[in-house]
């Protein structure tokens, strides 16, 4: 089962993304804060995380660093309304696998998430 974690402080965004990806055969968890996200990564071990950068409290950038430190193999796609070059570069340096901007193109997002999962499956095969 493909596991996805959606992290966004906006409940509605989490909900429609959950709906969208569940219809496409994903097991989707949602988190409204960075802290919840880190806890869910530890308990649920998602394959891919959709991570909003701008969140109150622990923001996406910090969450990304924490997650990548512990679970470098998990794929993280940053979701942002602010695509300043510096922010994107910082995220890429911290190990983000891609970034997409709001408002989201669901078609593109699905393609990207599927790619990441396929990549994971491929890299896991030899060791399995």
């Amino acid at each position, binding site marked *: 089962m493909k596991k996805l974690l959606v992290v966004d402080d906006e409940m509605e*965004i989490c909900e429609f993304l959950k709906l969208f990806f569940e219809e496409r055969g994903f097991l989707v968890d949602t988190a409204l804060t960075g802290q919840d996200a880190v806890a869910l990564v530890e308990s649920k071990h998602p394959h891919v995380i959709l991570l909003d950068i701008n969140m109150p409290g622990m923001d996406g950038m910090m969450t990304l660093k924490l997650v990548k430190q512990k679970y470098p193999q998990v794929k993280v796609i940053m979701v942002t*309304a602010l695509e300043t070059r510096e922010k994107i570069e910082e995220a890429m340096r911290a190990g983000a696998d891609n970034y997409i901007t709001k408002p989201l193109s669901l*078609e593109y997002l699905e393609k990207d998430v599927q790619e990441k999962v396929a990549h994971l499956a491929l890299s896991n095969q030899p060791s399995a």
Partner: protein
Amino acid sequence: MGASLFVFGACTIYLLPFLPKNFSGAKWIAHPLFPVFLMTLICIAAYKPLDFFYSEIFKRVLFKRKSFIHMSLIHLAEELRLVLDLQELANLVVNTFGEVLHLKMVAMVVPNLAKESFEIASGFGWSVTDYRRVHLAQNAALISLIQESGPHVLVRNSVVRAEAWQEANRLAHEFDMLQAGWIIPLFLKENLVGLLGFSAEQSDRTFDKTDFHFFREFAAALAKNVHNALTVRELKAANLELQDTQSRLVQAAKLSAIEQLATGLAHEIHNPLTIISGKAQILLLQKERAPLDERVEEVLKTIVKQTKRAADITRKLLMFSQGSGAPKEMLRLEQVLQDTLALVSYQTSLEGIELTQSIGPNIPRLYANVHEIREVFLNLVLNAVQSIGARGGKIHVEIRYLNRERIIEIQVSDTGRGIEKENVEKLFNPFFTTRHDALGLGLFVTKQIIHRYGGSIRVESRAREGSLFIICFSDAQTFATGSTEENASLPSLYLSQEQ
């Protein structure tokens, strides 16, 4: 003197035969030595009165000229008290001094504190380009000598003769640099506030004690005026710097406020847009399972498209508010212009303003900070929008490249209310505005940015008819610094645009 005595004597001899008869009969008159005797007598008697007469005439003619010179210069010194502009003061001094004393060259030298040197402020008999090149360091031999000797007038030949050869050489060189045979130092108490150097037309011209005395008096009066003018100049410079700093601070505060606003706005707007667009997309994607009504599908597509458009606008606003510290890059001006116009197009359409643009072929890229160039466009277009107001009108922006002059020209014209004649000059001053709700920094900042890139901006305007702003980026360096790769890609780029 001798000549007049001779004439007197000769006249006496000629007049001798006409003496009354009773005298001519006398024997002693016929004596051959008598005329000599008579002439000697006359010479002795007439010498004193004649001497007095001639010296009186001599004094009158010569001293009248001198006192005229002195009077004019004293008059000049009086007049100069009212002149506070250093340049004007220097011009007046050198020209009057040169003309009244019939000099070949006069130069007024003043200190430049910033460069720690002395420079010529104005020259009589000099070409401007020549005297601009003259710099005398604060520790130059001549300056040190003047500091030691005080307010005495220096005469080149005597000074050079009095010094040891090495020092003499340096002094001679500095005298020659100022093209001066004489130098009058301008001292205000202990401070050397300037020099007046001059040279005469004739190489053998001399000045006497009275002249030197007068020069010193004149120098003392002039030094006060020069000191005042120098103070005014410093004050003006400080004031300008203060204005500049003030406007930078206000601008920075304004920018960071916009930046904060834009960042917050982008977040607040992008999240609802993401939800609207996301949900519409989910509905749209359901058509894979159950076909949608055609009209519903159309509406959903419009929702997705329009939310993207709204997001683009906030993104542009964000782009404008950030990146003031961004590095310079090779900019396509037409691209920057289009981004700017997209941002204001909503406002212009609301106010019934027709916004048009024309882009000429082969416009070189400009090596600049995109944020700054955007600000230039935005300020000019917003200025035009405000000038037109709500009654509608036209704004036209044109970019073209003048091949022969190697100039990129940007014109922004509007059919707004124009600028009153008396305001045209003040237009680019900081904090100048004709509106109550504006800071008056837009055009000032615009000018500063343009000047930073070696460009120029001017305005042609008629009240009630509209204005035309013309920007020229003329410095070839500005846009020729791109790599050859960049330049090589230009033709195809512009070809596609022309199509």
